[in-house]
C-alpha cells in the first residue's frame, strides 16, 4: 500500500479523477468522476452513476488494475498519477492505491513517489507547490 500525503488526498477529493481501466486484452476505457472520498488512508472512493458502473464493470471485475489522474479545474498543479486495485461495491468504485507517480513535465515525469521515504515526498511537494489542495472555489 502506498502512503498518500494530505495534499494528494485533498486534490483527489476536491477535483476527482480521470479513471482508466482496461480489459484483459489491454483495451482501455475511461470514466471521469468529479469528486472522491477516502475509506481509509489509502483507499479512494468514487460515487458513480449506474451507467459509469456499467461502463467499467467488466474491466474491473476481470482486471482490477486502475489508473487515476486528478483532472478537474486547477489540477495542473496536481501532477500525480495513482495506480491501484479497484473493486466495485454497489454504486461505488473503491481503489486501493499501490503506486504513486509524478507527472510533472520534465525530468521528474514518471518519478515514482511511493518508493521514496515519506519525508522526501513531503519535501518534494513543499518545494514545488505552495498549495495544499485545490482552491476552495473549485
Amino acid at each position, binding site marked *: 500500500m502506498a502512503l498518500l500525503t494530505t495534499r494528494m488526498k485533498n486534490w483527489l477529493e476536491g477535483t476527482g479523477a*480521470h*479513471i*482508466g*481501466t*482496461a*480489459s*484483459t*486484452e*489491454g*483495451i*482501455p*476505457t*475511461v*470514466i*471521469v*468522476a468529479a469528486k472522491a472520498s477516502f475509506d481509509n488512508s489509502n483507499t479512494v472512493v468514487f460515487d*458513480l*452513476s449506474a*451507467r*459509469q458502473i*456499467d*461502463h467499467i464493470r467488466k474491466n474491473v471485475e476481470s*482486471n482490477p*488494475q*486502475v*489508473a*487515476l*489522474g486528478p*483532472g*478537474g*479545474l*486547477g*489540477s*495542473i*498543479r496536481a*501532477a500525480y*498519477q495513482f*495506480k491501484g486495485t479497484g473493486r466495485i461495491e454497489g454504486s461505488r468504485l473503491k481503489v486501493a492505491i499501490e503506486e504513486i*507517480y509524478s*507527472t510533472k*513535465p*520534465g525530468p521528474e*515525469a*514518471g518519478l515514482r513517489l511511493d518508493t521514496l521515504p515519506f519525508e522526501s515526498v513531503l519535501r518534494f511537494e513543499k518545494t*514545488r*507547490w*505552495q498549495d495544499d489542495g485545490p482552491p476552495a472555489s473549485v
Partner: protein
Amino acid sequence: MKLPKTVKDALKIVGSGGAVVYLTTSSAAGKPNTVGERFVAVYGDEYILIAEMFAQKTRVNLNENPRAVITLAHPLKGRSWAFAGPTAIIQEGHAPDEEFEGARISGILAEWGDWAQKEPPSEVPPDIRPPVLVQRGVIIMKVESIYDFAPERAGLPVNF
C-alpha cells in the same frame, strides 16, 4: 472518422480556447496509465496530436499496445468526450515516406516537431511553467470512435 468542427475547436491548447486532455494507454497485459497533457492539436480531419515530452510509460505501452483513449479535461464546458483509436509515437528517424494510418510522418514532424516554439505555454502559471521544454516526438491517434463520459451518458456515442 472525420472530426466535427466542435471537436476541432476543443482539441487545442487552453490558451487558444481548447482544453487540457488526458491520455490513457495500457500495457498489453491490461495495466492502464493515465496522464494529463497540455500540448494538443488536430491534424487533418481524423488525427489528434499530443507533444511527446518523455512520456516514459506511455511509450512503453504504445510500443506493445496501440489502443488508447484521449479524454477532455478542464475547462470542460460540457465537452465530456472520449476519443479512441490506434495511437503511436512518431519522431525523427523514420523513413522519409513513412506513414501512420495514412498520415505522412515527415509532414507532421515538420509542423509540430517544435511545439513549444509554435505554441509556447504562456497561459501556464509562472511558478509551475517548465523552464525548458524538451520534445522527443509526437503522439498521434487516428480517431475511430468518440464516446461520452458524462456520468449519465458514460460510454454512449456522442451526437454532434
